[in-house]
């Protein structure tokens, strides 16, 4: 079935994008670990901490989270209370899930747009970090991209349920 193949292709693409993005986040996390270790090390031995560690970690932390939320969604890692719905008939469950996922699509799309808007405002106001003067807006952009990706992942979940429903 060609729609099936198209779906599989789309699914594969989204998977590749989310995992690549999340691995970039993982790289930043490792960087954060090394940065903090160096900071403590230099402070302890030479009384000279790495300047700007605090704000660097803040920015890196925001990117780590932004880049990992879509991957978490792809691996169905976002927790929900399933106790009350898993006793329902499968069709009802699928319907409820589809509605939930659609709401999630809307929610994260809204976040992606509002945050992108905010990034523009921050860019125009030329807000930078206190010590190193790093512009903040790119990190807000990253969050917007992460939220948009997560919305796509949820859209994929919806399509998957619809496809299963159609084939049954």
């Amino acid at each position, binding site marked *: 079935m060609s729609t099936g193949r198209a779906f599989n292709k789309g699914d594969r693409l989204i998977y590749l994008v989310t995992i690549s993005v999340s691995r970039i986040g993982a790289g930043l996390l490792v960087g954060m*670990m090394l940065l903090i270790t160096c900071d403590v090390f230099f402070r302890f031995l030479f009384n000279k901490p790495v300047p700007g560690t605090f704000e660097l970690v803040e920015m890196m932390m925001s990117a780590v989270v932004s880049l990992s939320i879509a991957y978490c969604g792809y691996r169905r890692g976002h927790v*929900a209370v399933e106790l009350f719905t898993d006793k329902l008939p499968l069709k009802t469950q699928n319907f409820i899930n589809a509605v939930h996922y659609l709401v999630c699509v809307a929610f994260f799309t809204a976040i992606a747009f509002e945050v992108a808007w905010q990034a523009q405002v921050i860019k125009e106001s030329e807000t930078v970090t206190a010590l190193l003067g790093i512009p903040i807006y790119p990190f807000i952009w990253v969050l917007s991209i992460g939220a948009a990706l997560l919305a796509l992942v949820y859209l994929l979940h919806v399509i998957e349920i619809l496809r299963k429903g159609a084939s049954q």
Partner: protein
Amino acid sequence: MSPLMVGFIGIAILMALLMSGMPIGVSMGLVGVGGLWYLLGPDVGLSILKTAPFDAIAKYGFAVVPLFILMGSFCFQSGVSKNLYHAVNAWIGHFRGGLAMATVGACAGFAAVSGSSLATAATMGTVALPEMKKYKYDPALSTGCIGAGGTLGILIPPSVVLVIYGILTEESIAELFLAGIIPGILEAVFYIITISIVCRINPKAGPAGLRSSRKDKLMSVKETWPIILLFTIVIGGIYAGIFSPSEAAGIGAFAALVIALVQRKLNWKNFVLALDDTTKATGMIFTIMIGAVILGYFMTTTRLPFDLASVVSGWEVNRYIVFGAILIVYVILGCVMIPMAMVILTIPIVFPLIQSLGFDGVWFGIITVRIFEIAQITPPVGMNVFIVRGVAPEIPLTTIFRGIVPFFIADVIHLTMLIVFPQIALWLPSLLR
């Protein structure tokens, strides 16, 4: 409608959304946006989405969460838990029920380098279950002790749940960590006593294992150095004042990585697996956090947490009655949610109340963690039980829950003790104050 009333309706809608199976973070975010929209208009309602998500994650203090998870993942992937189990087993395995006791001991040890209850249960499940099967342990006892022992993960420091609690309540994370140590050790002791009672009543439940030679005993201890070293670096460094709890997580993850590399226990594949698991868990926790921050703006606007606190503390009832009511709500909610989500969801509402009643914030953190732990092993949604079941699919859930019962009784006694004697938790931190 008064804002307070809107706040209560918001909480009711939130509960309905959660029970319908909507992802937790999204449920909280939706109610937050909806509530602000209703109270202050659509512009304010939507504009919260502009700032709240970024503010929720761009925090230095939060870096400690993924870094402690990373440290646990490195330890998990490098198999330190296996050595730990064999070491404890060499010393006490020849007692009746000794393998189960060794499991609890190893859980406590692994908890000292891992901040999560599920990781502890999963690790010990794969290591200890086959061993206990070999010695024909009752499956109820073998699975029960792993499910229960796993809960030690979030009480014995470092604990990711206690870190989040500390950030939300502005209690000292260092004090919270110290406060978890004695209750955590006591809990392990309680479990070991429970196992010995179970085996006394039914000697077939846990036959004695082989006695190890003195040489094996000493050799096995040598293999546990990574855990001891890591715990000493992380917890020692915090209390020696060399680094803060936030920095300790970075140092701990780095040290865990170096130890795993030195032992040649980590290849590229394991390393990537550890990172993937960490980013997945990070995405999960912080999506809930983003929802919680949005909900928090709404709750603050309604003044519900503060009004609730002042109303309830104005009642002329014994404060332990209010405390008891909170416990009951916690037990009910804890049965359907993971501890991390529970803490992020309830603490902003409950904590002002606990403070106004004059309870100690650090002590309440320990109590909160204990209750959510107990909920992890009780039906219907004991997450730890499902983890154990995932490792041993041939053992029916009812058998696992039957095996949990004695440990549950021990938990209730342990919790009661912590409530009656707060000093158990507060003595160590009091040395620091």
